[in-house]
């Protein structure tokens, strides 16, 4: 079963409906104990790094998620859900991420660019992976974020170029992250959600 963590202020529901619309079973979970039955886990986006980090800690999710990762359960982080896979974020310097991805999230700072980075943008795939199967090497998806993960050759599957190169899709072992919102990116987004279900 694909389990979507129901963190407060996240759009878990939008991800849930996307899978319903695709005819793929999933459920929204609010209890950390339910993770023991997960075959796949999604950490959805929307919200702030600090509040998500606190929620995961105080609701007891951190250890079960780490155990699941050790047990080869596949994890998808979407937008903020991807950022929380990293070590830290400038958005909440006193809070910690899950630390699966050895990167730190930074603020988009460029006086020539509008922030948040909002809207559809082009994604450049650099490495093939089951999650990008069937997508063009350059494809569009919907973004809405003020912080980003820098590009690292260790994790990079795809990047965007908004002033500077930013991670669009990252992967590491059984973990993937997407900065864009697949649940709001029409056909291309649906494709990545199906790919995750099939991975």
């Amino acid at each position, binding site marked *: 079963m694909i389990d979507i963590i129901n963190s*407060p202020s996240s759009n878990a529901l939008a991800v849930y409906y996307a899978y319903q*619309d695709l005819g793929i079973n999933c459920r929204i979970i609010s209890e950390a104990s339910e993770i023991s039955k997960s075959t796949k886990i999604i950490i959805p986006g929307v*919200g702030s790094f600090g509040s998500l980090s606190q929620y995961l800690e105080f609701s007891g999710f951190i250890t079960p998620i780490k155990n699941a990762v050790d047990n080869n359960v596949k994890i998808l982080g979407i937008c903020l859900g991807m950022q929380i896979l990293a070590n830290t974020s400038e958005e909440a310097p006193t809070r910690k991420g899950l630390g699966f991805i050895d990167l730190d999230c930074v603020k988009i700072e460029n006086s020539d660019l*509008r922030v*948040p980075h909002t809207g559809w943008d082009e994604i450049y795939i650099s490495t093939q992976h089951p999650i990008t199967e069937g997508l063009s090497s350059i494809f*569009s998806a919907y973004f809405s974020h*003020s912080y980003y993960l820098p590009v690292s050759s260790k994790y990079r599957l795809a990047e965007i170029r908004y002033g500077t190169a930013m991670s669009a899709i990252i992967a590491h072992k059984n973990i993937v992250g997407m900065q864009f919102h697949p649940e709001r990116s029409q056909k291309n987004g649906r494709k990545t959600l199906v790919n995750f279900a099939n991975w």
Partner: protein
Amino acid sequence: MERSTTNSESTFRAITTRNFLPFRIIGEPFSQIKIQESNLIDELMLVHRNRGKFDALFLELVLEISKFLSTPLTVGGAVASINDAKSLFDRGADKIVIGRNRDRQSLLSQIVDEYGKQSLVISVDYQSDDLLRGIDDFIRVESLKGYFNFAGELSINNISLDGSRQGVDLKLINFFSNVTDVPLVVGSGAGSTSQIAECFKKGADAVTLGTFLSQTDQSIKQIRSHLNSLGIHIRIDN
């Protein structure tokens, strides 16, 4: 979007407006939204025209739309409290738009603290009469800068041009584009693809279309490819 009082089966009607007043019923919201989504709109902005409180039926409509929509959804029209905002986010809205209540800083900061800056669109509507009195009379640039602390996007509309198809107010786009730090969404008055292109050239980040889409045989796909030929870089894939 407007509540129908005559038809008991389909409770909501999608409408076009002129000067922000109901002008023409264009059909049933679900089919209209499905058509526009399959035509590859970038985002959907759903505005409840009845200025009272959100009722249960409108919230149900938002939820029903969320169930099939694969496009970013912005909802607004009557958000007056954090609970109003929450009831929309809980039903799948990605962003909410606040217009009349935009000067209530405590409301804005509550929304941003809980859902993040990217979730809030601040809308500034004005009339041509306002412009004759000068920009500073109807909206002070200083107060605009206050909005940027909260808004993830700024949406502007010249009510006098709404539904006119005479062209969007380019002078104002130029003005707002120079003062905004956040993405600028403009609307009201688009009547041709070249007018839409002008909006982007003046610094708009997005253009909202209502009447133009419902009263012409233009599809978004055609508009996209025309915009690209006019030098506006806009996605055509998918």
